[in-house]
């Protein structure tokens, strides 16, 4: 019996593990080219950590291009064995940013597998080549495999650790020496086996699965925690303690909450539970968490459901916070008589019904705003620090709210050369882009290069609101609904159509009187809408 056991324990356990034989080569993940003009990309956020298992199609990172932040998927199953580019770093297209070890490599050895992976990379590769040549597995190749996984520690596990405590749980040293050495039973040895204590925090981060999940739900940054479990493993009570500490820290932050401004700008959709818990500026990482000080703590005493941020929500938060913090905003409003425009729209739509054309009031607004640019070029401009860029094309951005059921959010679709397009073209293009935005999403091309933006909540019955400038624009028009009202016409009370719109402006580029003149031009166009037909 002893001989049998001895043989068993000498035989490398991995020789029995078929995964050791067909381990594939690691797969490189490189910085993708997400737009035609993209030269480099920034890893805004990793959604995975080293040691995480991923399936084909999983979103592993948010990549920021020169134009937008996009989600990056992987196309293979496996385990993220290495992350080579930290969050916030920009690398050129094609640069290797991470590596996937094939399926079966480091299964479930969360966090702990990294060092082993890195160390075994060479031997894993040699193991693969061994099998591909059809040769038998050499002892060296097979012993190098996942034997070390459960503990990921040095090979010399002390005998007292490796032996089954069950065999002699409280035996003294004398008992041990008198008894025959118990055969190390494979499978029993992890009952109480403890991973060797890590010397420093340089090693891979060890997190228990439930702790990892709780941290994600609470928006707690694991990298800032010190684990109290074996080998520094972060466990449930560490998360609970961190949540408590953070709860106590609430109130010390004094910066204004970004949430309300974001809500006002997207305006159309205010999603019910606030996804505040995670940092608004992911690229800045830990600094943002500490710096903003406005995240709602898990122990604030308020009942709340928590939602992780989509990358679109992160982009909205980042860009609009940046806009309100860096642009000197002010607003100017004007009310327009819309009787003529409403009448014209009615008759056009009647006449064009058979052609499937249905012009919206917004189409007229787009056209009017675009036409007004020729007389007011600074509304089609960008602040350049030491100069002002006046754009030579008029590209009107139209804010499109996405369906709440699909997570909500806001995009700006660009109507290029809007000053050269007919109402009919503008209408068709706006419809097509809105539809595409809501279903498939827009391409870079369709979202970029706007020079002026219109946000219209008229279809929701909103009569007045203000918007946040969409950088690098210098102005945005917040357009309300055209409504029937008691009005004074030629000194008498009458029923008429009116619409109110509010410009938000960058005072570095546009002064108040300029804004008033621009609105006057719009007023003239709205009140003489046939001008919009030519």
């Amino acid at each position, binding site marked *: 019996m002893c001989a049998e056991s001895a043989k068993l324990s000498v035989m490398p356990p991995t020789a029995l593990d078929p995964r050791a034989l067909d381990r594939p080569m690691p797969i490189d993940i490189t910085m993708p080219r997400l737009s035609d003009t993209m030269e480099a990309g920034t890893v805004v956020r990793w959604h995975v950590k080293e040691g995480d298992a991923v399936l084909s199609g999983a979103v592993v990172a948010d990549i920021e291009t020169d134009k937008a932040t996009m989600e990056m998927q992987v196309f293979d199953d496996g385990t993220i064995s290495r992350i080579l580019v930290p969050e916030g770093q920009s690398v050129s297209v094609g640069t290797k940013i991470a590596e996937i070890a094939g399926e079966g490599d480091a299964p479930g050895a969360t966090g702990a597998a990294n060092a082993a992976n890195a160390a075994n990379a060479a031997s894993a590769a040699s193991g693969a080549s061994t099998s591909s040549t059809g040769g038998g597995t050499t002892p060296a190749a097979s012993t190098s495999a996942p034997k070390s996984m459960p503990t990921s520690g040095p090979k010399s596990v002390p005998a007292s650790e490796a032996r089954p405590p*069950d065999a002699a749980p409280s035996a003294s040293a004398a008992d041990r020496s008198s008894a025959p050495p118990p055969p190390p*039973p494979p499978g*029993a040895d992890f009952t109480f086996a403890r991973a060797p204590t890590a010397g420093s925090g340089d090693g891979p981060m060890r997190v228990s699965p439930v702790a990892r999940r709780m941290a994600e739900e609470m928006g707690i940054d694991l990298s800032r925690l010190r684990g109290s479990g074996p080998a520094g493993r972060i466990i449930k009570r560490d998360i609970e303690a961190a949540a408590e500490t953070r709860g106590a820290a609430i109130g010390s932050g004094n910066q204004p909450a970004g949430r309300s401004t974001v809500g006002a700008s997207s305006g159309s959709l205010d999603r019910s539970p606030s996804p505040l818990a995670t940092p608004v500026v992911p690229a800045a990482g830990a600094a943002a968490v500490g710096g903003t000080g406005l995240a709602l703590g898990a122990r604030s005493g308020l009942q709340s459901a928590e939602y992780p941020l989509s990358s679109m929500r992160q982009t909205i938060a980042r860009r609009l916070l940046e806009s309100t913090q860096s642009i000197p905003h002010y607003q100017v409003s004007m009310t327009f008589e819309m009787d003529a425009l409403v009448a014209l729209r009615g008759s056009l739509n009647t006449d064009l019904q058979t052609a499937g054309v249905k012009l919206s009031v917004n189409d007229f607004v787009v056209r009017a705003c675009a036409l007004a640019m020729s007389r007011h070029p600074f509304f089609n401009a960008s602040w350049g620090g030491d100069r002002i860029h006046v754009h030579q094309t008029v590209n009107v951005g139209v804010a499109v709210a996405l369906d709440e059921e699909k997570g909500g959010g806001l995009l700006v679709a660009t109507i290029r050369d809007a000053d050269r397009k007919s109402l009919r073209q503008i209408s068709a293009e706006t419809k097509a882009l809105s539809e595409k935005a809501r279903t498939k999403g827009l391409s870079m091309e369709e979202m970029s290069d706007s020079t002026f933006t219109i946000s219209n909540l008229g279809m929701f019955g909103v009569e007045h609101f203000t918007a946040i400038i969409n950088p690098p624009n210098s102005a945005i028009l917040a357009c309300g609904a055209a409504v029937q009202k008691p009005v004074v016409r030629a000194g008498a009370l009458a029923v008429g159509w009116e619409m109110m719109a509010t410009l938000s402006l960058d005072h570095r580029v546009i002064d108040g009187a300029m804004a008033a003149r621009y609105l006057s031009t719009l007023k003239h166009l709205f009140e003489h809408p046939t001008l919009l037909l030519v």
Partner: protein
Amino acid sequence: MNHVTVESADPARMAAPEGGREIELRDALREAMSEEMRRDARVFLLGEEVAQYHGAYKVSRGMVDEFGERRIIDTPISESGFAGMAIGAAMLGLRPIVEFMSWSFSLVAADPILNNAPKMLYMSGGQFGCPIVFRGNDGAGGQLGSTHSWSVEGLYSNVPGVKIVIPSSPYDAKGLLKTAIRDDDPVFFLESERMLSVKGPVPEEEYLIPFGQAIVRRAGRDCTLASWGRPVNFCLEAAEQLAKEGIDCEVIDLRTIRPLDIDSVVRSVRRTNCCVVVDQSWSFGSPGSELAAQVHAACFDDLDNFVHRVHSADVPTPYASHLEQEYLPNVRRICEAVRHATYRA
């Protein structure tokens, strides 16, 4: 067939009722067999010394007087022979109960009980079933030495086609044995010699306990202790001890390991984030390792530590009393495992 209480899945209704009469586990087993034999003429008992000697452990005391020698049958000391004979009887429509004096002796009948009974329905294309109950003492603890101290569930649970029942109390023993006798498949019913004299509440009225329904013996929030058979009682004792240290354990009694009520364990682990499996068989390829694997798969994101296991030590069962006690899962070792699993070691 009168009205019989079949327990529902509601855990609150699955425990033995408080108060009422208390009987020994061996008497609960006899009541189950006698009631079923009165109910169904096809049921009969055979085994070594079950009739004239009233059972090596007096489980069948008085049964030969009531049912006669045609239905309570003394056999030669030949497990392979009488197990095979009973399987044949089951195939032809009877419902035998085979008593093994010890499950350790069933090893000489491995071919009929593992190779014939569980595969009969499958291999005959549904022509022959095998409604048979094999029952007897299982597990160590009585200083019977290595060869007579088997916990056969480690070996036998590996075989598809068997149902394996391991009760932890007189109440469960009766309700589960009645279900076993009525079951149309082979059932391995594993009793503990150390528990035959244990008394517990067993109601006079008839009841059945369905297979595959675990019961929460003790509710707790810090750690799930999952076990079956005799060690459940050690788990309850350990839980009391750990409660004094501020560790609140939930004790789940699986009752049957095939079928295995993984759902009840998963529900509990999702709350406690911690699980210790206590199984008196050897660890390698055991019901305990299977349960742990299933918990890992189902609760991966819920676990704060890997599932810890307490098994019999990986050695032949020692004869010496103090070694045998340390060899088996016991209160001290269970407490130790829970402290490790909850990071309080």
